[in-house]
């Protein structure tokens, strides 16, 4: 005769009915798992929220800036110039968002002056610092222009006689528009003003300077090369780029440059998360273990209480596997219920705590899904022994005990 079988749907509904017939006990049994999962979820959530908070309070500007300089060391060694293709070498590195080079131009005693077109006699001379910059610098310092534009590779290649004014220099020179191509003089050399800076986030000396392309500076003043390389890196890439940049700039001896790297965000966050985590994850793990033992215990009690039912089902054609499956599914379901309730409580704890501290709650998306799964695994493991016990009962022995 064809062996008996059980449909999945029936297995599920029998298991659910088994749990639903003792709702209070089911809830109490699930409590251990609820506590375990809640502890784990709130721990991970609080750690993530706090970790996020640390990044938030952290100066992102600082965290994404790497500066390489070739200032000679105290020992007095001559500074090693940056290669002229520094920008190209660095922009290729993974994690570099923008690169620009910057250096002072020695204009001797030359002063800077502007010609007022409507009043040729109103000619005032100022001592303003002159800097040379590469096309990428504006992005690297997170700068913005008030008007006009920053020079590009074309100006650099042609060594055009153009300048950009910092806002301080512009107001000293009384230049507020660039649409009519005003000219400034450095000494007696005229330069066309291409643009005026509104603001920069890094290298504030730019604000009071007259800035020209590097090739232009080389042509007129024998500019030797940049002294500073400003790199804008993506968040978290600071350490890596700080290590790689000097190598890219001078593979033979990277140590000739000084590197200012941002304080490491990752290590800070990891330390905080790590400290919170290790304690509470142990705590959560222990409560989860206690929860599993609770489920195992109650499932076993339930098996012993329902010996008669087991015998009855065997009389109806249930095979050992059907009996085992039913109890295994009951314990797994308890685990899932514990996981869901636990995750909910854990999330509420994280949200509540964040609300009190006025933090933004952060929770990895896998947690709401992972927690019930963890509960299910807990329940499944807890159910193995009781289920095997139930399946091993002989029908006659089982029926001898009343229901």
């Amino acid at each position: 005769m064809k062996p008996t079988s059980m449909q999945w749907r029936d297995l599920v509904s029998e298991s659910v009915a088994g749990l639903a017939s003792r709702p209070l006990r089911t809830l109490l049994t699930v409590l251990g798992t609820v506590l375990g999962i809640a502890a784990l979820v709130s721990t991970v959530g609080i750690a993530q929220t706090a970790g996020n908070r640390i990044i938030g309070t952290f100066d992102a500007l600082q965290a994404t800036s790497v500066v390489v300089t070739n200032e000679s060391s105290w020992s007095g060694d001559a500074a090693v110039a940056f290669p002229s293709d520094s920008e190209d070498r660095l922009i290729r590195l993974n994690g570099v968002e923008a690169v620009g080079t910057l250096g002072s131009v020695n204009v001797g005693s030359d002063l800077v002056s502007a010609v007022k077109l409507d009043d040729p006699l109103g000619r005032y001379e100022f001592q303003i610092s002159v800097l040379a910059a590469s096309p990428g610098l504006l992005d690297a310092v997170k700068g913005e222009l008030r008007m006009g534009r920053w020079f590009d590779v074309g100006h650099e290649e042609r060594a055009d006689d153009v300048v950009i004014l910092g806002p301080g220099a512009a107001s000293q020179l009384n230049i507020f528009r660039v649409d009519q191509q005003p000219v400034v003089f450095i000494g007696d050399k005229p330069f066309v003003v291409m643009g005026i800076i509104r603001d920069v986030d890094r290298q504030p000396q730019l604000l009071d300077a007259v800035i020209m392309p590097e090739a232009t500076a080389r042509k007129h003043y024998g500019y030797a090369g940049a002294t500073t390389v400003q790199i804008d890196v993506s968040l978290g890439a600071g350490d890596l780029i700080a290590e790689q940049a000097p190598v890219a700039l001078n593979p033979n001896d990277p140590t000739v440059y000084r590197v200012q790297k941002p304080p490491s965000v990752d290590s800070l966050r990891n330390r905080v998360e790590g400290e919170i985590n290790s304690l509470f994850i142990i705590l959560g793990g222990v409560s989860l273990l206690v929860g599993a033992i609770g489920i195992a215990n109650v499932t076993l009690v339930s098996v012993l209480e329902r010996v008669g039912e087991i015998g009855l089902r065997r009389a109806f054609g249930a095979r050992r596997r059907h009996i085992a499956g039913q109890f295994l599914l009951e314990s797994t379901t308890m685990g899932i219920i514990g996981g869901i309730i636990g995750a909910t409580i854990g999330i509420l704890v994280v949200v509540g705590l964040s609300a009190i501290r006025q933090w933004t709650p952060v929770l990895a998306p896998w947690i709401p899904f992972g927690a019930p799964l963890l509960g299910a695994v807990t329940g499944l493991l807890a159910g193995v022994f009781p289920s095997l016990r139930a399946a091993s009962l002989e029908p006659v022995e089982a029926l001898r005990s009343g229901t």
Partner: protein
Amino acid sequence: MAGTTLLQATGLRPAPLSPVLHLSGIGRTFLSGDTEVPALTDIDLTVTRGEYVSVVGPSGSGKSTLLHILGLLDRPTTGSYLFEGNEVADLDEASRTAIRGRRIGFVFQSFHLLSHRTVLENVTMAMLYTEVKRDVRVERARAALDAVGLTHRIEFPASRLSGGERQRVAIARAIVSGPSLVLADEPTGNLDSVTSESILGIFDSLRRSGQTIVMITHDASIAAHADRRVSLKDGRLQLEAAR
């Protein structure tokens, strides 16, 4: 099985004399410590289709042991057991379970209902493992409950039924799969005499509809309801008395 299938296919009523079960030389010994205790010795018994047989005997005479062997819940130590013409004494567990679930209905002294479940659920449960579709299960359960006069209690939880009603549910559950054999172990043992009579009346009507029944009892007046009475004493069949 082939005989049954043929009968079902031709739509004929089963031939009255084809045996549902045939025991020959059945023995069952239990190990009690190191000593073997014989509970049944050399039992020969044939029950034909449509027969209502009662097994009587004092407590400890081996009645329940015999019923467990008949119901394939237990294996005999020795002897041959033909169920519907097939040897089942040495069959593998999966096949025995299948025969038990599909061909045999059980009624117990202590009812064995699941008290948290409704009357209907208790009856449909008997078809849980035998590949009967859900709606068919409900349909059949309603018919079986109708046959025992419990239509009005279908959605009651079993815990709210009286003893007599519980046993009716158990009988409905035993017959719902259309078994070829119904086994009852002291079905009125927990009931008062008036209720007992009504339960015995249900068995009588089952008998009239052609159901094969083997009922265990220690009460001779109850045994009198059956067509045939066999008597057990110290694990041996004593005499067979026709009604």
